[in-house]
């Protein structure tokens, strides 16, 4: 049911008087019905008096509406002391005529009843008090005390009915408190008379941890939240739990923020998470969830964005020391005022107190990033469904404020569980799982992105390594033997390197051989050339010889001819 009534209608809506109590005005859609009495009932010690007193005090301080507090139980001085611890100066406000406290004492021992009477005395006192300061708000705490002081129930009931009618006539917004009774909301059935707005307070203790709850039983003429809302009383008074965003209407950002681990950003489409998204890092013990969280915080601070780290397991000093060993310097960020660390054991207080504490610190520090490490321990103070509802409210609140949140969660079993123990995996936008992978006698970490809404992300398992310089993700070795990690991966890589060397060597050998072959071939070619040349020479030689012979023979013949001729001539002469 939406807590806020839309003001689109032109019809006269029920006027409301804001209480000024954190959260209550949101649940009631603006406050209590103006000019009408409302009933607040609950067991002893559940905060009725404080709630109604805060209504008066805040009315006087914040809304300029003076109020009358008619106390049937406590004296004005006692009330003043009770609220002094909340920082309210009751005597001063009484002096300033903003508040008037009227203590009505009913002592059965001094009162004797005979015959007919009415409660005009009370009316007159109330009327006088209202007129004296011009009150707009009235509290009657606890009017049921009348029943213990006076015997004639018939008269009392008739007078109460008249009183509530009279209060309506006066136009004051009134709160009547009543003790819770068996079977009914109040012991004396006051709810019969006050029917416009009934708020029930409860105080429950489960597993030794107390939880205060508030529920609007009815509210005529107005929409209102119908659930039981946890509330708490602290040094600033009552805060009903932030019930933001029942409508899922928060704005979304498409801006991306780095996770602090470059390789992880690469797996997330190269840019990291969406701003204002919720991230869950789950894994078994010792898988490095806190390291992932711390690096995310570190990265946020490096971007000069404020970050709050809520640690439920380790002390801030411990985390700082541990992160230093893997290259994360959180101390500097703390000194620079960018990082705040809050450590508390989950059992310190109940869930809703945690939520409010977180809420308040976030409101105060205004961070861009919030880390909860781990949420698993919260289960020790509440049931799984309570933790889930708390986380839903927290995520809603953070999303409305555009704050990125990272939870870590411990999964108890080593197999890949589809659901974390808190059942929040469906709520978050991105879910990383860090897992132990055990093989070959060693454990290694594997990181998966189980989901990441609205972005392309890697479906591969990466080996998650923590080094002195920080966190890194290494591609796992995918070979014929399947996925190899850790030393198996390194061994495989070594084997590969050896093979590579051997191959290189072999290739070298072959090259040399080819070189040689070439040399041989070239030598052969050279010798053939020589052979050819010598053949050619031989051929030429015979040819030239032939020529020479021919020439010589020619010469010889000519010589011979010449010789013969001359011989003949000589011979002939001499003869």
């Amino acid at each position: 049911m939406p807590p806020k009534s839309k003001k689109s209608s032109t019809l006269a809506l029920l006027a409301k008087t804001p209480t000024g109590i954190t959260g209550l005005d949101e649940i009631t859609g603006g406050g209590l019905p103006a000019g009408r009495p409302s009933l607040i009932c609950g067991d002893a010690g559940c905060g009725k008096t404080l709630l109604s007193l805060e209504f008066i005090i805040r009315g006087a301080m914040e809304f300029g509406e003076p109020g009358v507090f008619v106390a049937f139980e406590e004296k004005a001085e006692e009330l003043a002391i009770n609220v002094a611890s909340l920082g309210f100066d009751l005597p001063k406000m009484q002096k300033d005529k903003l508040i008037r406290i009227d203590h009505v004492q009913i002592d059965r021992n001094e009162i004797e009843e005979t015959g007919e009477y009415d409660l005009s005395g009370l009316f007159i006192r109330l009327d006088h008090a209202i007129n004296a300061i011009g009150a707009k708000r009235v509290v009657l705490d606890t009017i049921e005390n009348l029943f213990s002081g006076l015997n004639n129930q018939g008269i009392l009931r008739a007078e109460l009915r008249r009183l509530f009618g009279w209060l309506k006539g006066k136009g004051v917004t009134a709160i009547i408190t009543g003790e819770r009774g068996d079977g009914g909301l109040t012991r004396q059935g006051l709810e019969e008379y006050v029917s416009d707005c009934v708020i029930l307070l409860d105080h429950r203790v489960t597993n030794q941890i107390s939880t205060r709850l508030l529920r609007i039983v009815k509210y005529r003429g107005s929409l209102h939240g119908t659930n039981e809302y946890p509330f708490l009383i602290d040094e600033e008074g009552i805060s009903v739990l932030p019930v933001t965003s029942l409508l899922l209407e928060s704005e979304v950002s498409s801006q991306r923020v780095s996770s602090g681990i470059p390789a992880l950003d690469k797996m997330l489409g190269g840019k990291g998470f969406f701003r204002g998204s919720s991230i869950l890092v789950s894994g078994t013990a010792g898988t490095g969830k806190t390291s992932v969280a711390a690096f995310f915080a570190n990265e946020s601070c490096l971007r000069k964005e404020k970050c709050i780290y809520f640690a439920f397991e380790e002390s801030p000093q411990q985390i700082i020391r541990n992160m230093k060993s893997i290259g994360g310097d959180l101390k500097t960020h703390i000194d620079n005022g960018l990082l705040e660390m809050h450590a508390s054991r989950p059992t310190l207080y109940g869930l809703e107190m945690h939520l409010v504490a977180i809420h308040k610190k976030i409101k105060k520090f205004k961070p861009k990033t919030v880390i909860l490490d781990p949420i698993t321990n919260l289960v020790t103070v509440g049931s799984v469904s309570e933790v889930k509802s708390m986380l839903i409210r927290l995520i809603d609140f953070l999303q409305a404020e555009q704050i990125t949140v990272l939870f870590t969660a411990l999964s108890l079993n080593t197999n890949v569980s589809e659901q974390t123990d808190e059942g929040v995996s469906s709520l978050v936008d991105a879910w990383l799982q860090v897992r132990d992978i055990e093989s070959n006698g060693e454990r290694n970490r594997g990181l998966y992105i189980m989901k990441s809404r609205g972005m392309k992300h890697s479906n591969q398992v990466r080996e998650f390594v923590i080094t002195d310089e920080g966190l890194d993700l290494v591609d796992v070795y995918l070979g014929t033997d399947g996925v190899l990690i850790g030393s198996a991966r390194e061994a495989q890589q070594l084997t590969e390197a050896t093979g590579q060397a051997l191959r290189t060597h072999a290739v070298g050998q072959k090259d040399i051989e080819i070189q040689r072959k070439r040399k041989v071939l070239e030598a052969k070619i050279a010798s053939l050339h020589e052979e050819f040349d010598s053949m050619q020479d031989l051929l030429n030689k015979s040819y030239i010889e032939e020529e020479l012979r021919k020439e010589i023979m020619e010469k010889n013949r000519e010589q011979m001819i010449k010789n013969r001729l001359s011989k003949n001539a000589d011979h002939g002469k001499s003869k």
Partner: protein
Amino acid sequence: MAKASKTEKKEYKWELRLYVAGNTPKSVTALNNLKKYCEQHLKGEYSIEVIDLLVQPQLAEGDQILAIPTLVRKFPEPIRKIIGDLSNEEKVLVGLNIRPVK
């Protein structure tokens, strides 16, 4: 409302104060009953002060008045209150400690 006591200074053994709100039948009955009992049992030893809260509403707080009419025995101590129209004589006398419980 006029004060029914005699002079202020005189010390009476019984100082009674009756709170009423206007001239309602209940108030009138109560006052008449009270006067009757006092005349019968405390003649000359009592003073009755009638306070109309419609006129002096601020006085209601002092004596912790809720119901109307209320009779307050201011003296002798301790303070006793009797509410109602005082129609039951026995109860009034016991309540005011004029007559011990039988």
